[in-house]
Every structure is written in structure tokens, then in C-alpha cells.
């Protein structure tokens, strides 16, 4: 039962075969059993059971229960849930309980979903392996010596390990798609503005988007519909109608044109990953799609531009964590080094609290961003990076005049070993080389399972589409999913 899809669970609840309470009880047991995977940073069994019982009562009384009535959804630990710990896997926010719900949480509640715990992540969503967490790394359910990707590693692993049929993550440079790929599940980053960011604790505001993880596209479509749409509390959310993604999912796009991005098959791409992608191309060709090679000439500037823009915004977004009103405050901030006695006590308190509260990767990015925005450097770095962003968007706009969907690998490699890249930030940054440009351009992207390496590690296929073309993205992906069974594979967990 734990490896069921959300749609299967809904059907079984509707038929009266099981209750939501039974489902969450079994998942709670399983979570307890799989504790070593370190997927959840907070999971309150009583709270989960209360929600499930409430939905069961409504269902029994014949009242409407919502599109997700009784389905557990695991939540990345950077989405604010009223009264629940929300920490971004950071020591800085240990014990922080927001007094409000994020908009996506509101929408989940309205749809009858069961909020099923908070999942582990790289601290403040900065990382590609979930190793930068104050709670320690999450293990990849397919190979426990390997990382689940990141930063939404906990949410990806939750679905892969059958701890929840659905989960929410956030994607700033690939943080949904990359862990989805290496955990063998579906992950979708919507168009910037499609899903409200209100209540998402910001890493880089102009890049962050919340999106779903699921076993398959049917579940993905269902969850995407629930969380999407204009929100007056997020000025950057866009007022466009939200299609019923589930209704059109099984209708293949007509005269589908697929673009193969030349730049996505360069140096650093694992040969096994490359060949799985080639197989996918063949499958689409067989299904009648027109395949065309396209170029995104500025994509090589994606990683450098990203590592200016994202840290710049992060340096400002994370400035509020200073120990003054909430979060971690250092106990001892007496002067330690010569000269510190001349620093005002308040400033010392802020400095020491931040030094203790943030991990090394977060500090690295705050410093990078502070530098990039400094007087005399902003033009060279930040403003230049914004120009690159416009060029990258221009590349995509040109490509989407010729094709409907772009296809390529999600991640250049399958899941890497724990600790393998922690000492080399640059190699870690390159994990997102194929995903980062979609964030810079604001376009939607999706990763779905498309095979395994010889070591039985999942491989992800990435599809990208024009802004707000999530429907095309899902329908195109579904063509592949219907013809393969990769999405039905589950890891052999103990």
C-alpha cells in the first residue's frame, strides 16, 4: 500500500477499502522503519492522524473531501506551516514555528491533503545533495551510500521510498528536477509565477518555484493543479487560468516537435545517462514526433550567471536572520579577538549568531552575493549576470519558436556517493548544469524516470517547455511514460 500512487490511494479510499487513517498509520510505521534514510526532519504522528481522521469523518458523512482528500503529502522544510517547526534544515531556524501557512499549504488543506511531515533539505535550499543539512544527509533509497540529490532530497526520497505518495519541493537551480532524477521519481518545476511563493522561505526570490514530486505524471498533474494559480499575496504570481492538467494528460500532443539541445550533451555527461537519453529520443521518434537539434548558445554562461544572481539575492534574503527577534541567538558574544571590544554589543550578537547559525555553504553564498552587489562590483557582476539572463531567455524563446519541448538529461551523472563532492563546491555546482538555465529563464521543466545505470541507479529525462506550457510538458512526458515502465520500479528497501 505504501508504494501506491495518490490516485490509487484515492480510489481505494473512495471505494471504502481503506481509510486515510489506515494509510497514514501504515506510512508512519514505514517512516519509523526507514528512519535511517533521514527523510523527515519533523513528523508529528498525532497531528497527521488528526488530519486523516477529520477527512475520514467528512468522507463518511458524504461531504466533499477535496481533490486530495486523505492523501498524505510530505512538505519540504522551507514551506511555512502554521505552528509547525519550519527550519530550512538550518540551525539558524531551530525551533522556529511560523504563525501562518504558506499559500500552497492553504491550498493543500483546502484540497483535503494530509500534511505529512517536513522533509530534509540542503540548508536554505543551497546544495545539490542534501548533505548541507543541520540534521545530517538523507540517503538515496536506491543506494544508501549515495546522495538523494538536492536541495529537495528529502522530498524526492520520501516518494521514492514510499513514505508519501506525493511531496512538495522547491527548485531554484534544479532542486526539484535533479533529486527527482537521481531518486527515480517525477519532479516538476513550474513556470516562475505559476505557483505562489508566499510562505516559501526564500533562497533566491527571482528563481525559486515550488513544485510537486510524484511516482508518475498522473499524480504530478493532480498535485500541480491543486497548488497552481494567482495569489494576491505574491506579486510575482501570474493571473492566468490553470488548466485541468489531469483531463488532457492522456491526449498526446499533435504534431509534436522535440528539440535536442546540443549544449546538453557535452563534456561531463555520463555515457550511461547519455545512452538512456538517446533511447528516449528514439522512442519519441517512433511515436511520431519530429526531432530537431537546437542550440542554446548562452547556456554555457548559465552556471556562472546563476552563481552571481542566486547568491546576491540570498545575501539579502538571509540578512534577516540576525538573532534579534527569532531564530538562533548566540549565548556568548563577548569579544574573542583583538579589536572586537570596539564593536557594539548588538553587532557582535548578530555576527556571532550568524556565524553559529549558518553552515559553510550558506556562508559561502552570502559572501559571494555580498561581494557581487558591492559598490564598484555590481556592474561587473550582478548587472552583467542580469544581461546573461536575458540572453538565455532569448535563446529559449528562439528555440520554442521551432519546437514545442526541449529534451535532454536532467543531471549529468546518476546519484553520487555521500561525501564525494562536499570538498569541491564547484563539482557540486556542476550537478545543476542542465537545470539551471530553466530557472534563469523562468520556464517550466520536468524530470521523469527514463532508465537505470548498470549499478541500478535511476536516470532522469528532462523536458523543458515555453512559459506556462506545463500542460504540453506533462502530455509530452506522458507519451514516454505510457510506453515505458520505469515509473513503476521501486527501490528494494529493507
Amino acid at each position: 500500500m505504501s508504494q501506491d500512487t495518490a490516485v490509487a490511494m484515492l480510489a481505494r479510499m473512495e471505494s471504502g477499502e481503506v481509510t486515510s487513517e489506515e494509510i497514514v498509520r501504515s506510512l508512519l510505521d514505514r517512516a519509523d522503519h526507514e528512519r535511517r534514510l533521514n527523510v523527515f526532519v519533523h513528523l508529528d504522528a498525532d497531528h497527521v492522524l488528526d488530519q486523516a481522521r477529520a477527512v475520514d469523518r467528512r468522507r463518511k458523512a458524504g461531504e466533499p473531501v477535496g481533490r486530495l482528500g486523505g492523501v498524505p503529502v510530505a512538505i519540504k522544510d522551507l514551506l511555512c506551516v502554521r505552528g509547525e517547526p519550519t527550519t530550512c534544515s538550518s540551525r539558524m531556524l531551530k525551533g522556529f514555528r511560523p504563525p501562518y501557512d504558506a499559500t500552497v499549504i492553504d491550498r493543500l488543506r483546502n484540497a483535503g491533503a494530509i500534511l505529512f511531515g517536513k522533509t530534509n533539505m540542503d540548508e536554505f535550499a543551497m546544495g545539490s545533495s542534501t548533505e548541507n543539512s543541520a540534521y545530517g544527509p538523507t540517503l538515496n533509497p536506491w543506494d544508501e551510500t549515495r546522495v538523494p540529490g538536492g536541495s529537495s532530497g528529502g522530498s524526492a526520497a520520501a516518494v521514492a521510498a514510499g513514505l508519501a505518495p506525493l511531496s512538495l519541493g522547491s527548485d531554484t537551480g534544479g532542486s526539484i528536477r535533479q533529486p527527482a532524477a537521481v531518486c527515480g521519481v517525477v519532479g516538476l518545476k513550474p513556470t516562475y509565477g505559476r505557483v505562489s511563493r508566499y510562505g516559501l522561505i526564500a533562497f533566491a526570490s527571482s528563481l525559486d518555484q515550488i513544485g510537486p514530486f510524484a511516482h508518475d505524471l498522473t499524480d504530478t498533474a493532480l498535485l500541480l493543479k491543486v497548488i497552481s494559480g494567482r495569489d494576491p499575496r505574491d506579486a510575482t504570481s501570474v493571473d492566468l487560468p490553470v488548466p485541468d492538467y489531469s483531463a488532457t494528460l492522456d491526449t498526446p500532443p499533435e504534431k509534436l516537435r522535440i528539440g535536442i539541445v546540443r549544449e546538453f550533451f557535452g563534456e561531463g555527461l555520463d555515457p550511461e545517462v547519455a545512452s538512456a537519453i538517446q533511447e528516449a529520443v528514439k522512442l519519441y521518434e517512433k511515436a511520431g514526433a519530429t526531432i530537431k537539434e537546437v542550440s542554446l548558445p548562452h547556456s554555457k554562461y548559465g552556471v556562472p550567471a546563476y552563481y552571481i544572481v542566486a547568491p546576491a539575492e540570498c545575501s539579502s534574503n538571509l540578512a534577516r536572520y540576525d538573532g534579534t527577534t527569532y531564530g538562533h541567538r548566540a549565548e556568548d558574544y563577548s569579544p574573542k579577538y583583538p579589536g572586537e571590544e570596539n564593536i557594539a554589543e548588538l553587532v557582535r550578537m548578530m555576527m556571532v549568531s550568524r556565524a553559529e547559525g549558518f553552515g559553510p555553504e550558506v556562508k559561502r553564498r552570502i559572501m559571494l552575493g555580498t561581494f557581487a552587489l558591492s559598490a564598484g562590483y555590481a556592474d561587473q557582476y550582478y548587472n552583467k549576470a542580469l544581461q546573461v539572463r536575458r540572453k538565455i531567455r532569448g535563446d529559449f524563446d528562439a528555440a520554442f519558436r521551432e519546437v514545442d519541448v526541449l529534451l535532454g538529461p536532467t543531471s549529468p551523472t546518476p546519484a553520487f556517493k555521500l561525501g564525494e563532492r562536499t570538498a569541491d563546491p564547484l563539482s557540486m555546482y556542476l550537478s545543476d548544469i542542465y537545470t539551471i538555465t530553466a530557472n534563469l529563464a523562468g520556464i517550466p521543466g520536468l524530470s521523469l524516470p527514463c532508465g537505470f545505470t548498470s549499478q541500478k541507479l535511476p536516470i532522469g529525462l528532462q523536458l523543458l517547455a515555453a512559459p506556462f506550457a506545463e500542460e504540453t510538458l506533462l502530455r509530452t512526458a506522458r507519451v514516454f511514460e505510457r510506453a515505458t515502465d520505469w515509473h513503476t520500479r521501486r527501490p528494494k528497501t529493507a
Partner: protein
Amino acid sequence: MDYEIVIGLEIHVQLQTESKMFSWSGTEFGLPPNTQTDPVSLGLPGTLPTMNRKAFELALKTAVALGAEIAPFTKWDRKNYYYPDLPKNYQISQYDLPFSKGGHLEIPPRKDGGGGTQCRLTRIHLEEDTGKLTHGYGGLSEVDLNRAGIPLLEIVSEPEIRSAADARGCLEELRLTLRYLEVSDCEMQEGSLRCDANVNLHIHKDGQTIATPIVEIKNLNSFRSVEKALLYEADRQYKEWQKNGKTIKDAPKTTRGWDDDLEETKPQREKETAADYRYFPEPDLVPVVVDAAWLDRVRQSIGELPFARRKRFEAEYGLSPYDANVLVEQGQDVADYYDAVAKATGEFKLASNWIQQDVLRTIKENKSTVAEFPVKPEGLADLIHRVKRGELNTNQGREILGRMIETGEPAETIIEKGGYKMVSDREAIAAAVEAAIAANPQALEDIKKGKKKPEAVKGFLRGQVMKQTGGKANPAMVGELLEARLAELVP
């Protein structure tokens, strides 16, 4: 001492809105600390700002009224710095694309002949206010975030104001204009109008002009302190220059705080390095596009402004600049009241006198407003008509107005009840004149012998006549008949 003072103002004005610039909590002044807050204005993790369109519109209205140029496209920027009164440790402000550039402030003419000019504006931008720190006992500071996020206009003038009185004048005119526009209450005491002044001197010596180092004066809490601080600072800078000869090239800009008790400026602690606010575009907000239709609607919402109104009162009603100013500077209500009375009576000067001497005095004494004043313009106009027609003398009119204010009854009722008809019966008044002269033979003697000035004696006798008639005699007639009778008695 041959120097000019050069002043530039940086003015902050809180806009009068129901809710904050980027969130929903209220803006009322004087509530218990931290009760006017919400997750957004507290800067809690995950919260996002959304623009208050009303606040933006008030800002537009202000800029249009000040003759500024409105940018068709404007955006928000983050100004990054750490301070406990700034919950996010950045302020949402406007950096390189403010919504408004240029414009000017009027400096009204003064009795001393000064003023009567304008001061150009560099720019006006919109931002969110910060919270407030109160330094309490034991070195502890308390943070109140009620103010954090209130819409704040920053108005920056060109450094071209040439006297302390002009600086005060243009600030007062700004306050009046903003009150006319109903965009801000501009209470300096409550901090809804705040002003910093940049000042230095241009000293003329041996055919050359020497500029002294620029000083920014802070803690200016009243119009009076603005003027005083600038005068003090000019004198201090001149003496300083005489002492050390330092010019603008030798010293950077410094900050000094005005001490209202000691009436002097004192150096404020400087930041060790130049502030680097690391401005960048606010990614949580979208740019604002101001189209022609919106701008038109804003223009149409602006009524007659104080400057124009003064000019009209002078031209249309023939008032002196002084009278026009008194009526206009009291606020829109008073000027509207005057307009109504002047139009209803056609007695422009008389209406101005009655309002200045009686209406405004009463309002001031009762600490109330024109809106609360019980006598409406028609009522006052009716009373003025009666005086003008000779039904009442001025003193009676005053007394009746007093009763009207007390009772709220119209003049007619009070006149009927109180027997206030003025006596214009020639025979009766002639008899009273005769009686007054007869009763005071000494007076006539004084005139005859030239002991006292005749005008003084006549004034005394007029008073006696009025007394006899219970104050009801037509004063003009009393004067005329008394004059005639005395002319007969003392040829």
C-alpha cells in the same frame, strides 16, 4: 561677514493610508508597541510584500501637485543594511528609477520681503518606513515595529535654498500643500513629516567664492528648530572657517544633531566606512507602469492648491497678500469657508475680517475645526448682510455671533429674542446727544478752552450716547449728529 548660506532639504513624509506600504496591518499613530504588525511587516521568513496601490496613488498625487515629472515605468529596489529597526535588514525603496523626478516647492513671500521664490526638487521616491528604537534604562533598547512598513515619501530638494527662513517657509508650504491634498497629516511631532538639512556656506573673499564643508543636520523636530539650527550652523561654520580655513575640498560631509534644549548642533558618530547599501532590484515586487489614463485620473483628483488659492484671493477678492495668506494657511476648510462667505455677501474684505477676527479666534480658543464650527457660511453671510445694511452695528453683530455659536440659532431668532434692533431713529438719537452734552458740561468747556484734544472729548461723548441707548444706536448716526450739534455749540 560676506557669505551666503546654501541649503538642501531631504524630507520624509508618511502617507496617510489605512494599511502599510506592502502589507495589511494598520498605520494609526500612538498605539501600544508592536500591535500594528503582521507577518510581512515583521519580516518573518517566507513572507512577501505586495504593493498598496492607494499609497502609490497618494505618492503620484503629491508628485503631480509639486510639478514633478512622473516616470511611466518605475521599479522597487532593496537597500541593504543591518539595523534592529529594520526587520528584514533591507528596506524596500527606489534607487535608479524613482517614480518622480524634478518639480518644485514654493517659498511663500514673507512680511520682511523675503521668500517669494521656489526651490527645485531633485527627485521624489516612495519607500517603506523603518521601525523605531527607544533607548531605555540600563543601556537596553526597545524595538517598536508599528511604524515599520508605513508608506514613506522621500522628497529631495536641490541645494539652492538661500536662507534659514526660506527653508522653513518651503517646509511649511509643503505641509500646507500636502494637507490640502489630504495625502499626509504632516505632524512633525509625531514624525509623519521629518526633515534633514544639508548646509554649507559660500564665503565671498577677495573676489573668490569659498565653499565650507557640507554638514547634514538631523533631529529637526519642528519648523522652529529647522530655522534655528540652520542659523546656528551658518554661524558655526563661518567661525570654524575663520579658525581653520577648511573648505569643502578639505573635509568630507559630516553629520550633526540638533539639540533643541541647548540650541546647538553636535557632531554625531560617523560610520567608519562609507555606507554601501548594495542596491539591487527587489525581486519580490513587479515594476509599476503609470499610464496616461491613471495619471489623468490623479490630475483630476487634485483641487486648487494653496499657492494658486492665495493668488486667486488677491486677484478675485482684492485681499492683501497678508490676508489671503492667513485665510489659506489655516487649511482648506477655512479657505472654503471664506470662499463661501465672500461669494454670498459680495463683501470680500468684511468677510475676511469677520472670519479672521471672530471665526478663527473662536476655533482657536475651543481647539476645534471649521467643520465643527456651528455657524455655517450662510449664517455668517446673513449676519454680515445685516450689519452692512445697518440693521446692526458691529458690536451688536459680534454679540449676536457669540450667541449663534452658543445656541446654534440663526441671527434672526437671536435678534428677535434679544431686541437687538439697531436704533436709527434720528430724533431719539438727537435727544440722546443733547442729554449727553447737558449731563457733561465740563466736556464742552474742555473743547472751548482747548484743554483737551477735541477728538478725545468727542469720543467720550459718543460713548455716553451709546450708553444711554443701551448700545443700540446706529454708530454712524451718533457720530453725525454729535458732530453737527457740537459745531452749533462751538462755532
